[in-house]
C-alpha cells in the first residue's frame, strides 16, 4: 500500500488521576504502551473484559481523551498537535457508533434532522433538498425507508436505532468507523443483521473498522485482525483466525473458553476447559511490575514477576513469557469439538 497508514498508534498511554480534593491519588494507567496499525478498508477488533481499556483506547484514538504518552497518526499526521479547528476537519474521517443506540440519538430531533446534522457540518454548501436526498439515500442503505425521516428516535427499536446511528456516521463519508460495542445491546438475530450491515458497508464504502467488543463471536464474524487488551496493555495481537485457532496467551484462552458454543454436545468440553484455566488460589506476586495477568493465570511462574514484552510467536505477537510452551497449548478447535 502506498502512502502512510490510515491510522497508527505508537506507545499510547492514558492515565487517570483518581479524584480527591486535598490529596489526589496517584495516576492510574488506563492504557499503557499500546501500538496498533490500521490500513484503509481493514477491520481490527479490540477485545477484553470491562475495565480493560477498550473504550479508553477508542476515545484516545479520536482525541476525545487526552493522551499522556505516545502518538496517534492519521495518514501520518500527528493528531495531538492539531488545533481544535484542524481537528474538527479531521473528525470527518473518524466517525463513531456507540453501544446504546437510543442514547446516542437526540430524543428531541426527528430522524431527518439527526441525519442532516453531519452534512450541515461537513458539507455546508449543500442545499436543504440535497441534504434530504442524501439522508434518504443513507437510510435506504441501512435498510430503512423514507417513512422513518419524520419520526422520532423513541419510535424505533434498538436495532433500528443502531441502523440510524450507522447511517449518520456514514453520511460523513468517513475513512474509519470506530464501533464501541455496537451490537451488545441487541438481540441475536438483530445483532446478526447489524453486523452484516457493517460488513456490507465496509465492502461498498471501503470504510475501515475499529471494532470494540467483549463478544468474540462478533469479532470472528467481522474482523481479520484482533488485539486483546487486559488492564490497558496488549496481551496478544494478530490475525483473528490464528488467534481463535491457537490462542497463545492464557488470557486469550480464558476469553475463548468463556465464549459459549451454541451446541449442547460441546458444553461439557467447554466447561472442562474453563476448569483447566481456573486459578485454584491467587498467587501473590510483587504488586509493582510483572505481568498484569499473573494473578488470574493458571500457568504463572516466578519469571512472571518480570513484565513480559510483546514478542512475535508464529503469526501473532504475544506478551507472555511462556507463550508457545507445550504446557500452554490449548487449541481453539478443541473448544468446539
Amino acid at each position, binding site marked *: 500500500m502506498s502512502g502512510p497508514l490510515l491510522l497508527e498508534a505508537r506507545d499510547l498511554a492514558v492515565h487517570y488521576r483518581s479524584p480527591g480534593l486535598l490529596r489526589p491519588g496517584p495516576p492510574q494507567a488506563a492504557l499503557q504502551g499500546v501500538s496498533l496499525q490500521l490500513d484503509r478498508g481493514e*477491520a481490527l477488533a479490540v477485545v477484553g*473484559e*470491562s475495565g480493560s481499556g477498550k473504550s479508553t483506547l477508542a476515545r484516545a484514538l479520536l482525541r476525545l481523551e487526552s493522551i499522556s504518552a505516545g502518538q496517534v497518526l492519521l495518514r501520518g499526521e500527528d493528531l495531538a498537535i492539531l488545533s481544535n479547528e484542524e481537528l474538527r476537519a479531521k473528525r470527518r474521517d473518524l466517525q463513531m457508533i456507540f453501544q446504546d443506540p437510543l442514547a446516542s440519538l437526540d430524543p428531541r430531533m426527528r430522524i431527518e434532522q439527526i441525519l442532516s446534522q453531519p452534512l450541515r457540518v461537513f458539507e455546508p454548501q449543500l442545499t436543504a433538498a440535497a441534504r434530504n436526498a442524501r439522508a434518504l439515500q443513507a437510510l435506504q442503505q441501512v435498510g430503512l425507508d423514507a417513512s422513518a425521516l419524520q419520526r422520532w428516535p423513541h419510535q424505533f427499536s*434498538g436495532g433500528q436505532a443502531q441502523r440510524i446511528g450507522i447511517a449518520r456516521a456514514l453520511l460523513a463519508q468517513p475513512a474509519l468507523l470506530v464501533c464501541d460495542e455496537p451490537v451488545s445491546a441487541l*438481540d*441475536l*438475530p*438483530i*445483532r*446478526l443483521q447489524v*453486523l452484516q450491515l457493517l*460488513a456490507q458497508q465496509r465492502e461498498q464504502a471501503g470504510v475501515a473498522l475499529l471494532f470494540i467488543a*467483549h*463478544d*468474540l*463471536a*462478533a469479532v*470472528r*464474524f*467481522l*474482523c*481479520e485482525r484482533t488485539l486483546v487488551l487486559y488492564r490497558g496493555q496488549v496481551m496478544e495481537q494478530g490475525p*483473528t*483466525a490464528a488467534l*481463535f485457532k491457537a490462542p497463545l496467551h492464557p488470557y486469550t484462552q*480464558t*476469553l*475463548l*473458553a*468463556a*465464549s*459459549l*458454543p*451454541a*451446541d*449442547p*454436545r*460441546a*458444553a461439557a468440553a*467447554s*466447561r472442562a476447559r*474453563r476448569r483447566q484455566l481456573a486459578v485454584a488460589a491467587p498467587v501473590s506476586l510483587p504488586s509493582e511490575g510483572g505481568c498484569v495477568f499473573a494473578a488470574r493465570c493458571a500457568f504463572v511462574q516466578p519469571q512472571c514477576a518480570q513484565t513480559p514484552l510483546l514478542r512475535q510467536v508464529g503469526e501473532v505477537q504475544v506478551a507472555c513469557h511462556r507463550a508457545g510452551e507445550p504446557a500452554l497449548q490449548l487449541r*481453539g*478447535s478443541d*473448544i*468446539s469439538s
Partner: protein
Amino acid sequence: MSAMLALQVDGLSVTHAAADGARTVVSGVSFELARGRILGIAGESGCGKTQLLLALLGLSPPGAQVSGSALLSGRQLVGADRRVLRSLRGNRIAMVFQDPMTALNPYLTIGTQLAEVLQVHRGLSKSQALLHSQHMLEAVGIDAPARRLRQHPHELSGGMRQRVLLAMALLCEPDVLLADEPTTALDVTVQAQILDLLLDLRERLGMAVVLVTHDMGVLAQVADDVAVMHAGVLVEQGPVQQLFDAPQSSATQSLLAAARQLSPTAQSLI
C-alpha cells in the same frame, strides 16, 4: 409422578389492559419442571418471557389479568392471596434479575439485605441471619464474605453483585429459582463463571431453575430442556439436544441460525 414436580404450569395467560383494548402478552403457556432440572426459555425481546416469570411470582403489573394454573410444589400461584404469595416469594420461589445494580438497594449493606430475607421468612435473629448469609456468600464463591456483608452494593463489581443476588435468592433454598437474563449484563468470563456456579448449586441443592435468555450458547451450556417463546406463545419445547438438532418451529430455527453464524467457532465472513 406429579408429586415430584417443582413447577407445573397449565394454560397460563396474561392480558394487559391497553388504551386500545386488551393485549395478551402470555397466551396459554404450559410446561412442567421437575426438581433439579433447568428449563431454558428462549425468545426475542418482547416475546413475553419476562411477563411469564412475573406472573409466576404474582408480580404482574396492576390491571393485568392472569388466568390458567401454576402449581408450585402443588400449591396454586394464580389467584393466590397476596399474603400467601408474599410468604412464598423469596422463600419457595425466588428470582434473579438481569441488572444486579438496580435489584439491590444502594443504601443498605449487603448483610442487611441478605439477612432480611431470613429474618422475614425464617424468623431468625439478625445475628443468626448474618451468619447464615455469610455461609451462602461463601457458597457462591465470594471471597472474604464477612467483609462483604458490611459493604454496600457500589463497592462490588457487576459479577460480584450478581453472585450476591444469587446468594439472596438461594438463602431459603427455594424449590424453584427464576432467572431473567441473569448474565446478559456481564462480561463473557464472568457469565461463564456464574453459569458454572448455577450448575454446581443445582447439583448441591436440587432446586429447579427456569432460565430466561435469548442466548443459545447459554442454553446449550446449562439447560436440560428448552422452551421457545414467540409472541406470547410457547411454540416449541423439548430436551435441549433434540431442540438444537431438529428445531421444528421457524422461531427456533431463526434463533439457532443466528447463533450458529455468530458462534465463536463458526466460519467468518472474511
